[in-house]
C-alpha cells in the first residue's frame, strides 16, 4: 500500500482537505471531490465485490451510473444502511462507511467462489432447470440458494431520513450538463425562456471539462478551457436554474418527468442531520432537450471481468479529473480512437503505457498520430485472448486477428500489466428518449441505436443523438436547438473547432480466442454473471425474442439493468440468429433510469401523513372516554368503550345489552349525507333506488337500496323528504363518495334534462343517535317543546326542531330495531349536543356504544351491511329483500339485470341466518359452509358474512350466504375449521323481535 497513485494535476480535487472513511472495516483516506471509487483506486483497492452467481472477484469498472461491479453496502445503522449503491457515484464524505456485498465471510476469502470452479455446470437457467425438479425438493434447495445469494442487506428499521416532493414548471428542461447541454441552456435562457438544467454529477461539463488535449480546440483554446468559461457565463443568466446532483429518473408522456435531487448524501454525518436528504421533482416542461451523452462499451473477450479491467474512458477520468492512477503498467485494448486520448493522458501524467491493442488494421486520425509521436506502442489487428490474475489482473495474452476477424492466428504474446483499459465504442444514452415513447433507429456505421424524430416536444442533442466528434456535437446541437426553440442565431455560430476525427471503424461483438468458446468466460453481464455462451445456449434452445433471452439468461436483469453490455447481447443474438440488429429491436428501458430509494418515492407521505384521517366533531369526547377506534375508510370511528379492564368482548356485550334494556348513544356523524334539491328530485330517486319514491310525503323517511346496472347491491341508506323538492340522502360511511359520483355520472351523462342538484353535506352535520326503550324520555328532556307522541312523530318520520337557539333535524329511524332518534345539527354544535343527550340520559344509564355493538344489534335484527353481507355479486332477491323492488316502476338502475338468466337462477348464493348447535360457539366471519365433508371434492356452499354472540338472545348468531339458501330453512350444515367441525342450522335472517314490536315500545 506504499504506492503513490495520486498525482497533483487536478483542479477538481482539493488535496488540502483530507477525508477519512472506512471500507470493509479498514480506515482509509481520500480528498474532497473524490468518489468512493476514486478514493479506493488511489489506495490501490480494485477488488470491491463478488459476482452474483460464480462469486468471481470483481473490481471497479467504470466511473458512473452504469457501474455493474462496485456496488456496496453504505452505512451499518439498521435504519439508515443502504444496499446496492454504486461506489462510482458516492461522493466521499467524512465518516463514510462502506462494505462489500455478495461475499461471505469476506471479499478476499469467499466461500461462494467455489461456484466459480463448478461453473461449467452452471449454464443459463441452471437454477430453473435443476432446482425445480423434483418440485418437492425446492424448499431444501432454496435454503442453500438464499443463503449464498443476494445483493446487500435491506435496512431493518424505519428510515429516519426526511424526503420531499416538489412541483416544477418550465419552458425548457435540459437533461445533462455536458457540452451540448450547456450550449442548450445558455441559448434557451438568453432567449427569455424559463430554463432548467439538470446534471446528475456535482458539477457541470461532462467529459469535455477534463479534455485537456492538443487535438481538441475551440477558438484556439483547449476544449476544457473554452467550456469552463462558458460555464462561468451561465451564472449571469436570470432565466436559468441549474440543479446539480439531480438525476432524471423517469420521462413520462406529455413531458412529465421525475427527477431526484440529492441534497445531503455528499455531506458528513454531522452536516446531514435534520436536513432533507433527497427531493423528488415532479416536472412539467413545455419543451425537453435530452443531452445525456454516451457511455463507453466494454469489449467481450475471455476472462474480461478481472479486477483491474476498467473502461478506457474511466481510466482517463480517474487520471485527468481525480488525479488517480488506476495502475502503473497499463495496457489499453480498443476498437476505436478514444482509447488513444487515454493513452496520451496517462503518458503525460507519467504512467507507463505498455501498449495499445487495437483490433483495427490501422487508424489515420490525428489523435493516433499524436500517440505514436509520444512513443506509445500499438498492436494493430490484435486481440486479447486471455487475462491472468485472480484478485487483480497480472498479465494479458494477445494474438493477431484473422482477416475476417472470426479467429486468431500466429504466436501468442504475453504482456504484464496491473490494469487493462478497454473500449468497445460508444452507446448513446437513449433510455430517456425511449421511456418517453420514442422509437429508435439503427446506424450500421458504428452500431448505435439513435432516437428518431419524437412526436412530443423534445429533441436529443450531442452524443446521445449519435454525434461523437467535437465539431459535430457543437454544430449539430446548435442547429437543432435553434430550430426547436425557434431562434435565429446564438452564441455558437462560426466557432473555429479543431478535433481529431475517427475514420477507421471496426466492430466484433464477441472477440475470438485461441480456445473454443466452451472453454472461455467472455462476460456480458458482469453483475449477473451471464456470458456470451449463455446467450448462445438460449438461442440454441429455441428462444428468439430478445426479451425472452434476457429473462432466460438474466442478462441485463441486475440493479444496473445491463446498461454496459446490452448492445453486445443484442449483437451476439443478431449474429447467431443471422438477423440484422435494426430488425431485432432493443429491450425496453423502463424507469427509473437509476434505482430510487423508496423514501424518495414516498416523500412526506409517511406515518400519519400516509393518508387523510377524518374525525367526527365528537371525536374528542370518545378519546376522553378511552374508546378504541376502528378505521372505516379514512374515518376514525369509536369501536367500543372498554371500562376498566374489560376485554373487547365484555365491553361489546355490556353495550349491546344496555342499548336494548334502557338506552344507548352512538356517534353516527360519519354516515354519508347528500343534499338533493330540484324539481326532478323525486324522479331522480325513482331512477336510482329500487323502490318507489313518488308518494313519499314531506316529513317522512324511507329506506332505499341502490344497485349497479348489473343488478348487484351497491349501497343503502335512509332518505328523508325535507320539502317538496328537497331530500336528504344518507349512505354508508364508506360508500358516500362513490354514491355521489355515481349519481353525478347518471345526471350529467344519461339524464341531463333532469333538474336536480347534489351537494355533499357529510362534514356539515354531526349526527347523534339515541336508541333503546328510554330514548323517547331522554329526547323529551333535550327537546321539551317537541311532541314525541307516536301519532305526531311516528317511526320513519322527521321533524325540524330547536334546541335553545340551535336548529336541528330529528329523524325517527332505526338501525338497531329499537325505538331510535337521530339528531342532526351543524358540526360545530355536535359535541355539545352529544354531551347534553348524555347528561339527560344519565338517570337511564345511557351507554355510549361503538361500531361493533351497532353491527351486533343490527345483526340480531337481520339488517344487512352493504359491503359486509354483500360483495358485489348479491342481488336484492339474493338478500330475500324482494319487497324493496318496485313492481310498478318500468325501469330503475339495475332492474333489467334482475331477470337475466343468471340472476334468476334459483341456486344462487342467498342470505340466510345460521345458528350453531352449541349456542356458545361463535363462527368466524369468512368460514366456509359445507353440507357433506366426505364427498370429494368438498363442495363449498357458501360462507359466513356476519357473526356475533348475542347477549340479548344469549346465543351465537350469524348471517351467511348459501347456495339455494332460501329453500334450506331448518337444514343442518357444517362449518369445518382447522381443528374442529362446527354443526349449524340454517334459519331465517331475523333473530330478534320478528314482529318489530320494539320500534314502538
Amino acid at each position, binding site marked *: 500500500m506504499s504506492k503513490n497513485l495520486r498525482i497533483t494535476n487536478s483542479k477538481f480535487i482539493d488535496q488540502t482537505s483530507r477525508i477519512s472513511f472506512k471500507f470493509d472495516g479498514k480506515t482509509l483516506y481520500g480528498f474532497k471531490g473524490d468518489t468512493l471509487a476514486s478514493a479506493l483506486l488511489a489506495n490501490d483497492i480494485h477488488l470491491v465485490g463478488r459476482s452474483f452467481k460464480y462469486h468471481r472477484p470483481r473490481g471497479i469498472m467504470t466511473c458512473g451510473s452504469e457501474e455493474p461491479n462496485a456496488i456496496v453496502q453504505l452505512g451499518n445503522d439498521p435504519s439508515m444502511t443502504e444496499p446496492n449503491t454504486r461506489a462510482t457515484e458516492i461522493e466521499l464524505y467524512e465518516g463514510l462507511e462502506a462494505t462489500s456485498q455478495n461475499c461471505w465471510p469476506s471479499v478476499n476469502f469467499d466461500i461462494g467462489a467455489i461456484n466459480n470452479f463448478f461453473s461449467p455446470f452452471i449454464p443459463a437457467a441452471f437454477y430453473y432447470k435443476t432446482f425445480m425438479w423434483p418440485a418437492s425438493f425446492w424448499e431444501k434447495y432454496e435454503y442453500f440458494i438464499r443463503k449464498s445469494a443476494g445483493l446487500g442487506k435491506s435496512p431493518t428499521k424505519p428510515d429516519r431520513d426526511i424526503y420531499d416532493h416538489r412541483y416544477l414548471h418550465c419552458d425548457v428542461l435540459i437533461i445533462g450538463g455536458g457540452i451540448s447541454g450547456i450550449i442548450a441552456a445558455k441559448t434557451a435562457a438568453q432567449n427569455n425562456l424559463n430554463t432548467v438544467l439538470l446534471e446528475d454529477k456535482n458539477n457541470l461539463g461532462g467529459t469535455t471539462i477534463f479534455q485537456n488535449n492538443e487535438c481538441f480546440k475551440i477558438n484556439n483554446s483547449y476544449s476544457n478551457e473554452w467550456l469552463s468559461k462558458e460555464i462561468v457565463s451561465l451564472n449571469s443568466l436570470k432565466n436559468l436554474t441549474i440543479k446539480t446532483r439531480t438525476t432524471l429518473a423517469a420521462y413520462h408522456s406529455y413531458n*412529465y418527468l421525475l427527477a431526484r435531487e440529492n441534497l445531503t448524501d455528499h455531506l458528513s454525518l454531522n452536516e446531514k442531520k435534520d436536513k432533507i436528504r433527497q427531493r423528488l421533482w415532479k416536472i412539467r416542461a413545455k419543451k425537453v432537450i435530452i443531452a445525456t451523452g454516451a457511455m463507453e462499451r466494454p469489449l467481450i473477450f475471455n476472462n474480461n471481468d478481472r479486477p483491474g479491467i476498467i473502461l478506457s474512458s474511466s481510466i482517463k477520468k480517474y487520471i485527468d479529473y481525480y488525479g488517480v492512477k488506476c495502475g502503473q503498467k497499463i495496457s489499453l485494448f480498443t476498437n476505436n480512437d478514444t482509447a488513444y486520448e487515454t493513452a496520451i493522458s496517462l503518458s503525460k501524467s507519467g504512467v507507463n503505457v505498455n501498449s495499445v491493442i487495437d483490433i483495427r488494421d490501422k487508424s489515420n486520425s490525428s489523435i493516433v498520430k499524436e500517440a505514436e509521436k509520444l512513443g506509445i506502442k500499438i498492436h494493430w489487428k490484435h486481440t486479447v485472448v486471455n487475462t491472468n490474475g485472480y484478485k487483480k489482473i497480472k498479465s494479458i495474452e494477445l494474438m493477431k486477428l484473422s482477416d475476417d476477424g472470426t479467429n486468431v492466428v500466429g504466436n501468442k504474446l504475453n504482456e504484464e500489466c496491473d490494469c487493462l483499459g478497454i473500449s468497445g465504442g460508444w452507446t448513446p444514452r437513449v433510455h430517456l428518449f425511449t421511456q418517453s415513447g420514442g422509437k429508435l433507429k439503427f446506424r450500421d456505421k458504428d452500431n448505435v441505436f439513435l432516437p428518431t424524430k419524437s*412526436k412530443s416536444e423534445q429533441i436529443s442533442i450531442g452524443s446521445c443523438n449519435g454525434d461523437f466528434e467535437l465539431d459535430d456535437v457543437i454544430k449539430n446541437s446548435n442547429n437543432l436547438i435553434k430550430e426547436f426553440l425557434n431562434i435565429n442565431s446564438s452564441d455558437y455560430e462560426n466557432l473555429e473547432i479543431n478535433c481529431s476525427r475517427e475514420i477507421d471503424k471496426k466492430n466484433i461483438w464477441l472477440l475470438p480466442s485461441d480456445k473454443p468458446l466452451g472453454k472461455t468466460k467472455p462476460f456480458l453481464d458482469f453483475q449477473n454473471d451471464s456470458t456470451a455462451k449463455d446467450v448462445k445456449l438460449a438461442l440454441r434452445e429455441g428462444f428468439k425474442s430478445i426479451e425472452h433471452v434476457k429473462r432466460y439468461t438474466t442478462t441485463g436483469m441486475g440493479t444496473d439493468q445491463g446498461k454496459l453490455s446490452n448492445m453486445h447481447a443484442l449483437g451476439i443474438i443478431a449474429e447467431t440468429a443471422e438477423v440484422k440488429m435494426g430488425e431485432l429491436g432493443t429491450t425496453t428501458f423502463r424507469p427509473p433510469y437509476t434505482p430510487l430509494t423508496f423514501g424518495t418515492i414516498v416523500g412526506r407521505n409517511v406515518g400519519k401523513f400516509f393518508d387523510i384521517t377524518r374525525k367526527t366533531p365528537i371525536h374528542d369526547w370518545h378519546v376522553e372516554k378511552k374508546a378504541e377506534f376502528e378505521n372505516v375508510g379514512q374515518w376514525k370511528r369509536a369501536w367500543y368503550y372498554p371500562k376498566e379492564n374489560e376485554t373487547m368482548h365484555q365491553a361489546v356485550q355490556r353495550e349491546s345489552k344496555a342499548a336494548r334494556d334502557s338506552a344507548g348513544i352512538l356517534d353516527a356523524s360519519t354516515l354519508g349525507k347528500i343534499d338533493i334539491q330540484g324539481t326532478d328530485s323525486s324522479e331522480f330517486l325513482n331512477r336510482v333506488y329500487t323502490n318507489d319514491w313518488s308518494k313519499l310525503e314531506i316529513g317522512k323517511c324511507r329506506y332505499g337500496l341502490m344497485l349497479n*346496472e*348489473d343488478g348487484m347491491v351497491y349501497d343503502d341508506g335512509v332518505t328523508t323528504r325535507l320539502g317538496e323538492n328537497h331530500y336528504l340522502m344518507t349512505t354508508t360511511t364508506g360508500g358516500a363518495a362513490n354514491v355521489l*359520483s355515481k349519481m353525478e355520472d347518471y345526471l*350529467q*351523462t344519461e339524464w341531463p334534462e333532469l333538474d336536480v342538484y347534489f351537494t355533499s353535506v357529510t362534514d356539515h352535520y354531526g349526527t347523534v343517535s339515541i336508541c333503546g326503550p328510554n330514548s323517547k324520555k331522554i329526547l323529551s328532556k333535550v327537546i321539551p317543546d317537541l311532541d314525541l307522541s307516536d301519532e305526531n312523530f311516528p317511526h320513519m318520520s322527521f321533524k325540524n326542531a330547536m334546541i335553545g337557539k340551535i336548529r336541528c333535524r330529528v329523524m325517527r329511524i332505526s338501525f338497531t330495531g329499537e325505538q331510535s332518534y337521530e339528531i342532526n345539527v351543524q358540526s360545530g354544535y355536535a359535541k355539545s349536543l352529544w354531551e347534553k343527550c348524555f347528561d339527560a340520559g344519565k338517570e337511564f344509564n345511557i351507554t355510549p356504544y361503538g361500531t361493533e355493538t351497532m353491527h351486533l344489534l343490527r345483526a340480531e335484527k337481520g339488517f344487512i351491511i352493504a359491503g359486509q353481507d354483500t360483495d358485489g355479486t348479491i342481488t336484492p332477491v339474493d338478500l330475500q329483500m324482494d319487497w324493496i323492488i318496485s313492481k310498478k316502476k318500468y325501469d330503475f338502475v339495475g332492474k*333489467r339485470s334482475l331477470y*337475466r*338468466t343468471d340472476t334468476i337462477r334459483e341456486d344462487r348464493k342467498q342470505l340466510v341466518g345460521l345458528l350453531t348447535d352449541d349456542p356458545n360457539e361463535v363462527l368466524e366471519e369468512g368460514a366456509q359452509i359445507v353440507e357433506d365433508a366426505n364427498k370429494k371434492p368438498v363442495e363449498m356452499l357458501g360462507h359466513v358474512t356476519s357473526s356475533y354472540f348475542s347477549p340479548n338472545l344469549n346465543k351465537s348468531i350469524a348471517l351467511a350466504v348459501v347456495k339455494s339458501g332460501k329453500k334450506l330453512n331448518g337444514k343442518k350444515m357444517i362449518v369445518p375449521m382447522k381443528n374442529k367441525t362446527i354443526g349449524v342450522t340454517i334459519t331465517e335472517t331475523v333473530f330478534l323481535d320478528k314482529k318489530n314490536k320494539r320500534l314502538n315500545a
Partner: protein
Amino acid sequence: MFLINCPYCGERDQSEFSSGGEAHIVRPKQPKELSDDQWAEFLFMRKNIKGVQFERWNHAHGCRKWFNMARDTSNDKIHAVYKMGEKPPIK
C-alpha cells in the same frame, strides 16, 4: 402522465381526473324490450382498440364535470376533448 384540457377548467394534471371507460354508450330507453344478449351488449361489451378510442373522463378533483375525450391508445395522444352530448369532433 397526461395533461388534460378540461373543457370547463383548462389544462390540468391527469391526477385530478378519473377515467370512466368507453364513451357514447347510451343507456337503453326501453330495457324491458331487450333480450338478454342485447342487454349484455350494453352492460358488458367494451371496445379495447389500438388507435383512437373515445372515452369518458371526469374532472373528479376539479369541477366534477364529465366530458369526452378522443385518445389514441397506441401513443396516448389526446386528439380532442368535448362536452357530454356533443358529437366527436374527429372520426
